[in-house]
């Protein structure tokens, strides 16, 4: 369980997160939506403390990492997370195989001889094959995203944080990634946080959807209730999303 209390995060010129509090329960699929530049990436980066908030608690399985500078505690807590970066963040000096297998070495006891098989499996889940020996520079944007996705799930963490899992993908692969996210959660009961500006994706897969606007969660509810929200920001965002869909 991830409990977030009164989270505040600013950058020199503006406050991006204002006093955010939310509980993400085990097994839940929690989505955060909101327009570009509103602070979605900032929010999930704070969860595993890639960014340090000015104040607030982030309690993961009873351990508060909100403001700690204890690198060991942070490292320990981070071990239960998988993280998909918005831009992929693949290691460009390593091959696809080495990238996807990277976490296995540090996070699991799986012997090195077992990596290739796991990598092949995870790549198949994101619809890729025969790319193991390519370097990231030889992949398209969408392929990079999928390799990165495979890397973040390879060690089968307890929590996965996805930053824009479907941006830059074609409809077929988007469907595939959607199924993958749902599967990971269904089969392994992985607690999932998805950050996206794709409202339809969020409404389709989530157990709860939160709308980030003006530094706050202006609405946090189940998809069915979310659709009927009276909040002005949510209504606007839904209208625009529907328009762009047509």
């Amino acid at each position, binding site marked *: 369980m991830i409990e977030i209390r009164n989270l505040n995060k600013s950058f020199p010129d503006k406050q991006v997160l204002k006093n955010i509090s939310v509980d993400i329960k085990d097994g839940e699929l929690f989505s955060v939506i909101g327009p570009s530049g509103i602070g979605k990436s900032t929010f999930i980066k704070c969860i595993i403390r*890639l960014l340090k908030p000015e104040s607030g608690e982030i309690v993961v399985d009873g351990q508060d990492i909100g403001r700690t500078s204890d690198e060991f505690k942070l490292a320990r807590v*981070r071990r239960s997370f998988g993280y998909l970066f918005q831009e992929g963040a693949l290691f460009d000096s390593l091959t696809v195989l080495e990238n996807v297998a990277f*976490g296995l070495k*540090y996070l699991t006891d799986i012997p090195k001889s077992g990596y290739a098989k796991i990598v092949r499996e995870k790549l198949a889940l994101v619809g890729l094959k025969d790319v193991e020996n390519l370097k990231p520079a030889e992949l398209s944007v969408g392929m990079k995203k999928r390799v990165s996705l495979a890397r*973040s799930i390879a060690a089968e963490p307890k929590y996965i944080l996805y930053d824009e899992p479907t941006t830059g993908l074609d409809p077929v692969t988007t469907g595939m990634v959607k199924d993958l996210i749902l599967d990971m959660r269904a089969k392994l009961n992985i607690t999932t946080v998805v950050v996206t500006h794709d409202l339809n994706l969020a409404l389709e897969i989530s157990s709860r959807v939160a709308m980030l606007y003006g530094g706050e969660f202006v609405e946090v509810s189940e998809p069915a209730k979310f659709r009927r929200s009276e909040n002005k920001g949510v209504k606007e965002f839904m209208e625009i999303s529907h328009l762009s869909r047509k």
Partner: protein
Amino acid sequence: MKHRFTEYVGREFISLAETMGTAALMLKSVVFWLFRSRFEAGETAKQAVTIGVDSLIVTALTSFFTGMVLSLQTGISSKNLFNEPLYIGTMVAFSMVKELGPVLTSIVVAGRAGAVVTAEIGTMKVTEQIDALYTLGTNPTRYLLVPRYIAFMITLPLLTVFADFIGIIGGCLVGMVKLGIPSSVYFDDVFNFLKVSDFLHGFLKTFFFAFMIATVSCYKGLNTRGGAEGVGKATTEAVVTSMVLVMVLDYFISAALVAVGI
């Protein structure tokens, strides 16, 4: 006006203090992980090749020509003063082994390898690959910094020994061809006067230089901001800082070594 000046000085001091603080934290974590982490043999070897082997040719050329010009200049001066070239081997060997070998090699390595390290780590920083390390069970100190520190500390001293040797050979060549000194005389001049402590004086300095270059390059890389432009800026800053610090450190370490009799 006065107010603005104090503000400026104050800000500069705060930023300097911040830099020292972050650098100190980085060093602390390097020392910590140096002894605790599983040894990244593959990554260390790869770095030793980038830093060391790829600097071989530039180092060889630099020290060869430096040895040659040293020999030529001392030869000419000696001829003017004494009508014959005296102690050319001694002069070349002393200069190479105590000063020019270590300093020039360090400058070559700072310019070549230091730039590579800063650019690589800086690129990883701005593309979130550094953050990715944290999410995959390791951290940049363990995975990137420790192997690079080790590689610098191993290769720079070895490159220096190589440079000393090449420089002395270069001096010998000019001595034979231009000054008419037989190579036996040249090498007698080298080995009759050069002591182990003279060699150690230069050799020991390179460990400090290697440590400093690794620190500056890694620090600048890890603190890169602002995309590709930032990487370019960080790289230039790292190279300039390292080169200047080689010169500055050289004086103080030499003085310290002299004080303890090396």
